[in-house]
């Protein structure tokens, strides 16, 4: 981890006291502490994060960091520990040991503050099929403390951003898988989170819907400067979307770097990421993974398809 502790602390303060002036003062302070301002901050940091279920270690002492506005891809087969990792980072599941922080807030001790900073799209379908797209958005706006007079305008903006304006008043039940995913991403962005977690955002989607979701994720990062962590087991997704990749296998982070770095590490710049995975994990990505994870992935795929 490159950043010293002080800067984490400052980052934390900055988030707690919103005023711009204070933010600027803190930037100077950061500078005077010898931290390069041009170096993006680590928005997410974990240290030996671990989660154990009975005798299964789902996430095993994982340490990594995600920089501001980065799209970070967590790669691995079903059952590698990606979803457990996301559950811990989104405060749904307390870690067994280790630490994690987002925007400087501890994911266990300051879970409430973390929740204000993040958006989350679960692997499963989380939009309510019996409500319309707009109703789904307004519900989330209320739960996330979006100011009353901005709820509607933000919902309308999100719908148009995701190309869903035409179907705003249609029930989500009638949507295609790709439309549901775009709506869910719109929901997770309404409160302008600093960090967005997408768990298998394109699972079960056809190639056209998939690339549309990719396009929207990248636009969203560019427009709102959102930092994104997504999980996937598609190498194509990594190559199209991610600035940086972490490869997980049996709960451990077995490799970390940009796609180019990983290819260089195995001594073959022409290698596909599939080949990279085989080298680091010792088996092909689609052969690993257990029954439970596989059945869940299929269920989601069925419901979206």
């Amino acid at each position: 981890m490159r950043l010293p502790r002080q800067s984490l602390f400052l980052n934390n303060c900055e988030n707690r006291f919103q005023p711009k002036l204070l933010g600027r003062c803190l930037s100077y302070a950061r500078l005077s502490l010898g931290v390069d301002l041009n170096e993006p901050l680590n928005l997410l940091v974990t240290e030996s994060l671990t989660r154990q279920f009975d005798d299964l270690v789902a996430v095993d002492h994982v340490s990594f960091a995600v920089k501001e506005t980065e799209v970070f891809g967590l790669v691995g087969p079903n059952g590698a520990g990606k979803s457990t990792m996301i559950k811990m980072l989104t405060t749904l599941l307390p870690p067994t040991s280790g630490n994690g922080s987002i925007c400087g807030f501890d994911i266990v001790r300051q879970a409430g503050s973390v929740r204000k900073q993040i958006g989350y799209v679960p692997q499963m379908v989380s939009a309510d099929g019996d409500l319309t797209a707009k109703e789904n958005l307004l519900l989330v706006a209320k739960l996330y403390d979006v100011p009353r007079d901005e709820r509607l305008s933000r919902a309308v903006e999100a719908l148009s951003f995701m190309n869903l304006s035409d179907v705003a008043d249609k029930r989500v039940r009638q949507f295609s898988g790709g439309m549901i995913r775009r709506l869910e991403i719109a929901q997770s962005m309404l409160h302008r989170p600093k960090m967005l977690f997408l768990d298998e955002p394109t699972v079960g989607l056809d190639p056209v819907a998939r690339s549309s979701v990719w396009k929207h994720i990248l636009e969203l990062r560019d427009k709102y400067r959102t930092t994104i962590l997504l999980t996937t087991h598609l190498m194509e997704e990594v190559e199209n979307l991610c600035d940086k990749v972490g490869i997980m296998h049996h709960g451990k982070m077995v490799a970390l770097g940009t796609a180019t770095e990983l290819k260089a590490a195995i001594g073959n710049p022409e290698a596909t990421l599939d080949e990279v995975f085989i080298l680091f994990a010792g088996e092909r990505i689609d052969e690993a993974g257990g029954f439970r994870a596989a059945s869940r992935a299929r269920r989601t795929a069925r419901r979206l398809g």
Partner: protein
Amino acid sequence: MIEVEGFVCKAFAMVQVETTKLRRDPTEILSRAIQPALWMLLFGQVMSRSRVINTGSLRYLDFMAPGILAQSVLFTSIFYGLSAIWEKDLGILQKYLVSPAPRSALVAGKALSAGIRGLIQSVFVYVLSVILGVHLNWHPLDLLGGLLAILMGAAFFSTFSLIIACIVKSRERFMGIGQVMTMPLFFASNAIYPIAMMPPWLKTVSHLNPLTYQVDMLRSTMIVGGTNNYPIGLDLLVLVVATIAAILIAARLYPGLAQ
């Protein structure tokens, strides 16, 4: 103050979801009207004729109507936890829990939603009662008291059900437990016979059963010449305290459902 406003806003957001769904698809709640109708038509008629249950000055059908109303609300509310497990399987629950909304606001919103459902169901039972010639009391204050009893009863039993859901976590296990729970709750109460008729051990159980207080409150407000075992204030107090306690417990257990 801002926190209270936020709490209320979030709880009502949950209620709004429920009412929207009910408005779009009322078939489910309509089907719930069948069971109380059967009880009043079959059980009620037979018991009225045979006069084996001593209900004092009240006709048996009048005595029974509030009990059946409470029962129909109970039978719906007690399966409320099932929808929470369903929401977990869908991923909707995860989205709720990642939001900064206080867990207690989410749970209270669910409880209030169940209360709204209960109120709609009670309209059916009221209509049925009018048709069967039950002597209903239409005094506005009594009507209000009756609505409150239904609201609180539904809120309590739905939250109780949510607690069970958070403990058992799977639909199959919940179905089994739900079936096992409803009958004892119903029969260990004053819903269809007075407490005075019960053996001593069952009397003790019925005193611990919130359904008894809900029925008692309904019986003193819904029927002309209605009787009660407890002061109405005590009935309400028991229901409110039980509901708040259940909401606090459920709010602690709710996040565990998503793990």
